[in-house]
């Protein structure tokens, strides 16, 4: 009995190693092809302006999508994909908590992988995810267009430089759109010793 447990353990470790390898090979190729996932970088800045984007389940994939649909679905999303090389099965490493919007083809175009679908089956190019999200989130889209939802980067003055409105999927994970909880940065240092503990109750 103990031997079999051991074998299972070894298999599991091998599986993990495989995962890491897949990840390593995927990053440098496909990542650059996806304009929507590209991270904006300001010309020379003294602080990190990388948008926060997290998927709670994508632990082995550095919490970012590093592969595209066409990796497996060569022609369209309806036909059978070529053999998956993802060890835990495709799509299983993602979290799907986009409310009631649980059907893949609500957003992904059935005939054109790597493109999104409009209400009438029209194609929304993959680098324009805003047009997809506004199908349902009209109020947010209005705010985004006015510049008060989502972050704007680089210039406030349009005469001096381009305003960069971040697209929806640069901050929100489309499959898990709730903005993630973050670890706060360190609190300010206290110069003076505190006379009371924080929990103590004054009466």
């Amino acid at each position, binding site marked *: 009995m103990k031997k079999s447990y051991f074998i299972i353990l070894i298999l599991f470790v091998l599986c993990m190693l495989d995962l890491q390898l897949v990840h390593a090979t995927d990053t440098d190729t496909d990542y650059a092809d996806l304009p929507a996932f590209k991270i904006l970088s300001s010309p020379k800045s003294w602080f990190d302006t990388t948008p926060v984007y997290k998927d709670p389940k994508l632990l082995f994939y550095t919490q970012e999508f590093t592969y595209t649909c066409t990796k497996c679905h060569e022609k369209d999303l309806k036909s059978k994909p070529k053999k998956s090389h993802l060890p835990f099965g495709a799509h299983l490493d993602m979290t799907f908590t986009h409310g009631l919007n649980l059907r893949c083809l609500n957003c992904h175009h059935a005939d054109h992988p790597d493109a999104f679908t409009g209400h009438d089956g029209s194609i929304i190019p993959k680098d324009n995810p805003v047009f997809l999200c506004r199908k349902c989130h009209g109020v947010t889209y209005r705010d985004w267009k006015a510049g008060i939802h989502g972050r704007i980067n680089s210039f406030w003055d349009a005469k001096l430089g381009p305003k960069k409105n971040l697209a929806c999927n640069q901050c929100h994970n489309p499959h898990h759109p709730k903005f993630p*909880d973050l670890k706060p940065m360190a609190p300010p240092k206290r110069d003076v010793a505190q006379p009371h503990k924080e929990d103590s109750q004054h009466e």
Partner: protein
Amino acid sequence: MSDENKDGKNQREPRSLEDITYAPLTRRSFLKAGLVATALTTGGAVTLSPIKELDQPLSIDEFLQKHYEELTPQHMERIISRIKREIKRDYKIDADISDTKPTPGVEFAYALNIGRCIGCRRCVYACMDENNQSRDPEIQYIRVLEMEKGSMNFETSNHYYDPETVPAKNKFYVPVQCHQCDNAPCVKACPIKATWQEPDGIVVVDYNWCIGCRYCLAACPYWARRFNFAKPKIPKKDINPKMDYLGNRIRPRGVAEKCTFCIQRTRNGKLPACAEVCPTGSRIFGNILEKGNPISYILENKRVYVMKEELQTFPRFYYFFEK
């Protein structure tokens, strides 16, 4: 005692000035004079001792520098080259110091969405990186207050919160920084006009003019001003070489400083550092006089809240609640 006084035995006789000045030198008067002389020398040494503690003696140029509003471009050029030399000497950095003037037709305003802020403090550290604040002792312009949901009581807020993840349950967060008030108490408190409001709405400090009395720190109702009790310590690699005379140039010891909406960025059309890093996009900045930009949209369409409105400071910093 009283009896003796009445008798007049011990009462001193009135003496004329001549008697005192030309009195013969006795043992008592000699010791008295010596005592006075010693007191004067020690007292003088104590009063002048701060000068000895100066890292570098005040240069004549700096001593004779005029008020910012009286400076000609030639003066400014000389001052900037002097400050560059000082920074090179003290921090081994080739700084690029500018003195960008306000653009006509531009008035800045800031809006912060409390409904979306999660209190992650990214803005606080971006501000430190951009504005060359002292790392030790630590100076931060932005304070993020953690508040109980359903209350707006700043007295019970906590700015030392440090949970595993934010937002914590039943809390909301209110970042506070300089509100660039139109009727600024700090400007009124300054006895020497070392701080004033620029035409584009930014309240600035001339660090060379400030005498360090800290009246402005006491006057500010938002606790937005900081004082350099020590010479700023910044690691060389963290110094931002793009500096402005009224903005983020490295401050000398003993002067007040404050948020300037990143004057070195915003006067060149860029957004302030805190707005650039906010991961939730809660911070919105822009020119209030321009139609159709985000900040005017908010002021026209959203319900905004002004902190401590009853003080009549008329801030340029608005809070609004929007999901």
